[in-house]
């Protein structure tokens, strides 16, 4: 096996990328569905000093979000977050989740964004495709990792939990 490492790597990647059973949030329209998950985001952070200990920073992170639980809207998403953090007033951000079909979920984020309280609350605003009309909320705690040599930063969502109300099933009569 001259190319064993590459083959092993490809097998691992393929195994990891194997088709997982998809859930269909639209099928249970009307009820609330719970989900949990994990998210690791990589990107950049630019910080300016606002006098004293106060700091302002803009962040842009992209990463893979994997969800679990019977109510998950999808197995996983590519998630992108853009946000503004002011250590004096807190964190405000927007997030887009994109699935393998290109369907998207849009949400807003807010939190204190301080070292003492890094809990972030997300509100699902709307979606496209199979997530059209979906609403809900989610929470997670934010962990920052030091910047790399090239200015890259990593953000980690810890204890990500949420609840969604799927949108109306396409073709179903409106009530």
């Amino acid at each position, binding site marked *: 096996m001259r190319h064993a490492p590459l083959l092993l790597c490809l097998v691992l990647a393929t195994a990891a990328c194997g088709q997982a059973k998809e859930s269909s949030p639209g099928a249970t329209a009307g009820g609330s569905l719970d989900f949990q998950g994990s998210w690791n985001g990589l990107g950049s952070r630019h910080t300016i000093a606002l006098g004293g200990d106060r700091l302002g920073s803009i962040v842009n992170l992209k990463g893979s979000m994997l969800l679990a639980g019977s109510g998950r809207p999808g197995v996983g998403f*590519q998630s992108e977050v853009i946000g503004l953090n002011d250590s004096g007033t807190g964190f405000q951000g927007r997030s887009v989740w994109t699935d393998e079909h290109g369907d998207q979920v849009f949400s807003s984020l807010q939190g204190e964004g301080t070292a003492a309280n890094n809990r972030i609350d997300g509100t699902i605003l709307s979606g496209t495709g199979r997530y059209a009309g979906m609403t809900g909320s989610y929470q997670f705690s934010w962990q920052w990792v030091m910047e790399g040599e090239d200015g890259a930063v990593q953000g980690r969502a810890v204890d990500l939990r949420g609840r969604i109300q799927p949108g109306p099933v396409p073709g179903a009569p409106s009530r």
Partner: protein
Amino acid sequence: MTPGLIDPKVPDGVAPKPPGLIRELGTGLRIKRAAPFALALAIWFFPVPAGLTAPAWHLFAVFAAAIASVLINAFPLLTASMLAVGAIVLTGTIKPEQAYSGFANSSVLLVVIAFIVAQAVVKSGLGRRVSLFMVSRFGGSSLGLAYSIVLTDAVIAPAFPSNTARGGVLFPIVLSVAQGAGSKPEDETRYLGGYLMFCSMAGLAVSSALWMTATSCNPIAVQIIKQAGLDIDFAKWFLASAVPSLLAILLLPLIVAKLFPPRVGKTPEAPAAARKELAGMGRMSREEWITAGTFLLMVAGWIFGNQLHLNTTSVAFMGFGVLLFLGVITLDDITKQGDTLVTFFWLAVLFAMSAQLNEMGFMGYVGQRLAAGLGGLSWMTLYMTLVVLYVVIHYMFVSQTSQVLALFGVFLDVGTKGGVPLPLMAFALLFASSYFSVITPQGGSQNIIFAASGYLTQRELYKLGGIITLAFLAIYLVVGSPWVYFVMR
């Protein structure tokens, strides 16, 4: 019959000599050359896995095919990377500025400049003087030379926060020693040079694991571990790493000699001959003094770069500029550096592709899915599986820091939640984050300087890299794990 595992082969530096027209190719080579395209198309048109986006999946298809084409010797790395970057931009998979970002990456530029500065050390005669000095002290055998290089690296490593810069310091010495011993990349004498180059490259990987301050990704990983509840300082790191790392350093030249025999055994007469020749060289020339002074200033800039807020690559650029200004390197010398340009092209492209795979979440996705699928294992099995996976996944990365940022926290979380003691999991991942860099020639930017020397073919680099990584993995798991468990109780 070659005594080692590696078949003898006409050295090709970065690439095997390409045949001419397609119609001149044999059937075997045609199939070989078709295989990477087939692989790319197969992955590309496979349904996009849930949780990934189409661009990330398509980029993976092209990246995997490019690496595979080099491994099966279908194309040189330059050809594969040029086809790959053309494909991903023309298909709209990623934006041009993302695909070309590697050309402005400071690590990539540092590799290129370090490579050119190394040629100045050789050209000025300083390299020959240093090589004769080393042969006069350690030249009784090729093994002695290899040990002198890896041990020197291990000693200077804690002072260098950039292992790429450290590679830039070692490479001119290794190149000079190889050339001084009559080893040339273009003929059968290349084995000694190849042996020394690979020992140096792999030595950098282990010396980075030996000291907390020996590479920039170590402190980042330490911060992640701190958030998990374990404080690691310089002394604690050294205590945990000393036994497995020093064992790996001691075994490295012996293992590489078995796999890739230098074909030069004991040379008891060499030290005396080198001393005589060194005496014949006379006093240092103007060019040697300038090169030595510039090189020492560059080394000082790399060592104290963090404290003085100096960019490592800028230090290299300034040194390069000084050598040009004072005429040690001329424009004519630069025009002859075709290999450097080749290296710059393929490294920049692969670097950008791997970085984009990471940014698009592909690496994190694979890591999270694999790690999450290990539930229910005993902690010991989980521990070993996680470490092996973490090392193997580095096949897809072109930067150690990128993998640490993307996957270190995920693997640490899964391990500790599965019952693996935190210090054991933490140190195993910390050490792996350094020694896995040798798994591919592009697995760490410091490798490229040695890989591009022309003494080893790409296939040899991949083969040796795979086997040595396996050896390191075995040493750190079998010897390192009980040691860490014992001292961190």
